[in-house]
């Protein structure tokens, strides 16, 4: 467990150690880079034929919604892990009595 968490943290830090700033805009999204490549491959001909029906009005709001997504998922995971653990603990105490 401890080893897993240490490995997880190491993987998070690794990019900053390995990557020396080479690009004009470091740490941008891989999908934005792919978009550039599509423009290059098609010689700027390709225009997306459909655009998102709603876009987060600013980067802050987008970050907020992504955080909300992660938080909602984490609440569900935490709730059920705690619930199962509580059941186990309750059973253990009832047996001990």
């Amino acid at each position, binding site marked *: 467990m401890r080893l897993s968490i240490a490995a997880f943290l190491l993987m998070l830090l690794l990019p900053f150690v390995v990557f020396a700033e080479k690009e004009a805009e470091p740490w941008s999204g*891989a999908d934005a880079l792919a978009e550039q490549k599509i423009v290059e491959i098609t010689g700027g001909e390709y225009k997306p034929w459909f655009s998102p029906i709603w876009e987060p009005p600013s980067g802050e709001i987008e970050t907020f919604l992504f955080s909300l997504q992660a938080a909602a998922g984490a609440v569900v995971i935490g709730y059920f892990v705690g619930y199962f653990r509580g059941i186990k603990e309750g059973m253990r105490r009832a047996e001990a009595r």
Partner: protein
Amino acid sequence: MHIMEGFLPSPWWYLWFIFTIPVLAYGLTKMRVLVEKNPDIKVLLALAGAFTFVLSALKMPSVTGSCSHPTGTGLAVVLFGPAITAVLASIVLLFQALLLAHGGLTTWGANVASMGIVGPFIGYAVWKLTSKMSTRVRVFLAAAVADLATYVVTSLQLALAFPAKEGGVLASFKIFASIFAVTQVPLAITEGIVTVIVFKYILELKRDVLVELGLLKKSAAGGARA
């Protein structure tokens, strides 16, 4: 990172829908049967769905100097197989397309195909093929491979839709894979680690349901207690 809205021309966007819809229908049926059999499985489904929700919201830096996010489908595919994983991933992708302008509705079919179906399916194959290894290693490999395979498929989808003028699909694939797949390698490893941590909790707390899902044999250590 998913294919952006409007970035798959005809016929590719609807071909991927044709590929995806039957798998989703099959996954939904399978899900219903499982839940009717044992309501406890509903809880595990929620857990696996939530895990995908969390992981696919985290845009993380990678060694290539760009950011991408894990898929979080490894846990679901180990527990339930690829068809049900497809259903869970499709919900996440719909949420992101509608509320985050991440991915898209027209590219939803293609993104479900990569993140929900083909990627997890390859991870599942790894899970099945490594049955002699320890559970921890198998979970790690299945999750990491499902993650990485997802982005190899995304690269292939884009390469098919946008073949290079010189060198065709293969040349394009190299370009897109250098963006998506290479960036994804460290993230796939991270995803494998996180999936192992969560799987360990489920193993500790819900061993009985795992036995019922056919993932563990009753005779396995601690089985009698559960």
